[in-house]
């Protein structure tokens, strides 16, 4: 059972920097690359992922002693898929414009490794309270990274933030930043920066 006896606050904090799902664990790269073309998308996507992660982790942590080890993956995926479909239907019914701009990436949260990874690595071994804190921390960490990447891409590639024009008319949009290549450039630079900072922190 709970092998590490970390403090409860650590379970929350670790997702933001030390075990950040994007920058450190390199999980969930596909949606990170694909939907970070505008801040609005990033907000919607992080909320959808946070909802699915929270519900799945709580559910699985509660059931962890009942789930047979041999078929745990199958059970996890069914539970995750149920919550993902619920959030997709909810968005389509009550937030149609957001749902349109996120396109297929909401249903694709099912195969988002962040959720599968946290469920397998954490909530199948830890209690409900810890799982809630873990999922919240991971969601914040994920959301922050999405926010930074999409902010950079939207600003440089489109001259806007949240759809509002912030760059003056002198600004020429760098189209490449909106294209997939821009996602790789931004994510790569960010990963490099994060690694650099972590190594500095370790030394000091």
């Amino acid at each position, binding site marked *: 059972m709970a092998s590490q006896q970390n403090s409860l606050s650590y379970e929350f904090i670790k997702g933001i920097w030390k075990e950040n799902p994007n920058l450190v664990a390199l999980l969930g790269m596909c949606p990170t690359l694909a*939907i970070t*073309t*505008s801040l609005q*998308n990033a907000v919607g996507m992080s909320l959808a992922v946070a909802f699915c992660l929270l519900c799945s982790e709580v559910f699985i942590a509660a059931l962890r002693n*009942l*789930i*047979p*080890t*041999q*078929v745990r993956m*199958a*059970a996890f995926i*069914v*539970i995750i*898929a*149920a919550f993902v*479909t*619920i959030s997709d*239907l*909810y968005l*389509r*019914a*009550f937030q*149609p414009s957001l749902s*349109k*701009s996120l*396109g*297929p990436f909401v249903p694709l949260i099912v195969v988002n490794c962040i959720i599968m990874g946290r469920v397998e690595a954490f909530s199948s071994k830890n209690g409900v309270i810890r799982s809630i804190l873990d999922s919240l921390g991971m969601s914040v960490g994920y959301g922050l990274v999405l926010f930074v990447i999409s902010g950079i891409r939207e600003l440089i*590639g*489109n001259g806007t933030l949240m759809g509002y024009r912030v760059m003056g008319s002198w600004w020429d949009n760098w*189209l490449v930043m*909106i*294209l997939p290549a821009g996602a790789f450039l931004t994510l790569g630079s960010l990963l490099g920066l994060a690694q650099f900072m972590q190594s500095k922190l370790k030394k000091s």
Partner: protein
Amino acid sequence: MKEKSYYIILFLTFVSVVAGGLLAYFSAYTAPYIAADKKKQLEQAILDVVPGAVKSRTVKEVGDFKVYEGLDGDGKSLGYAVFAVGPGFSDKISLIFGMDAKREKITLMRVLEQKDTPGLGAKVADEESFLKFWKERDLTKGEILLAKPPKEASSLKPNEVNAISGATISSRGVVAIVNGAVAQLKKEVP
């Protein structure tokens, strides 16, 4: 007992049934909202693309191709709204455009649904980048064409529109859908 196969089978069945039930309930709960939203958007789009119209009437529906008539307060026809679906870059694009009563020009065009690249192809639904070129396009001189090279909006020929730079496929897709719909309209509603 956790390792016994009957337990595994029972457990998986139980989880799937619960998940399935939950989804069936939620899907039934949201379906009317989703359908109502779609219908409202279509209604609104019909009235948008036929200037002055306050209500609409269905003229013809053939699969994905639908023709509506925009009416003024007295029920007089002000023009047509044509709904059509066709291939874009990543997925189907569905759009609606208005025509005057004589069907000699396109008054306005709106893209209702598209899944093309955000920031690029997705701009087919954007007024400033694309839709504004579709105002008052002339249909008497044949099909709508993409201007080569793109021009200032004021110097476009009456049957030309500008493509979106970086999203030629999406732009061509829209032009093809509109031209196809105009041709089909001639056939279906002579």
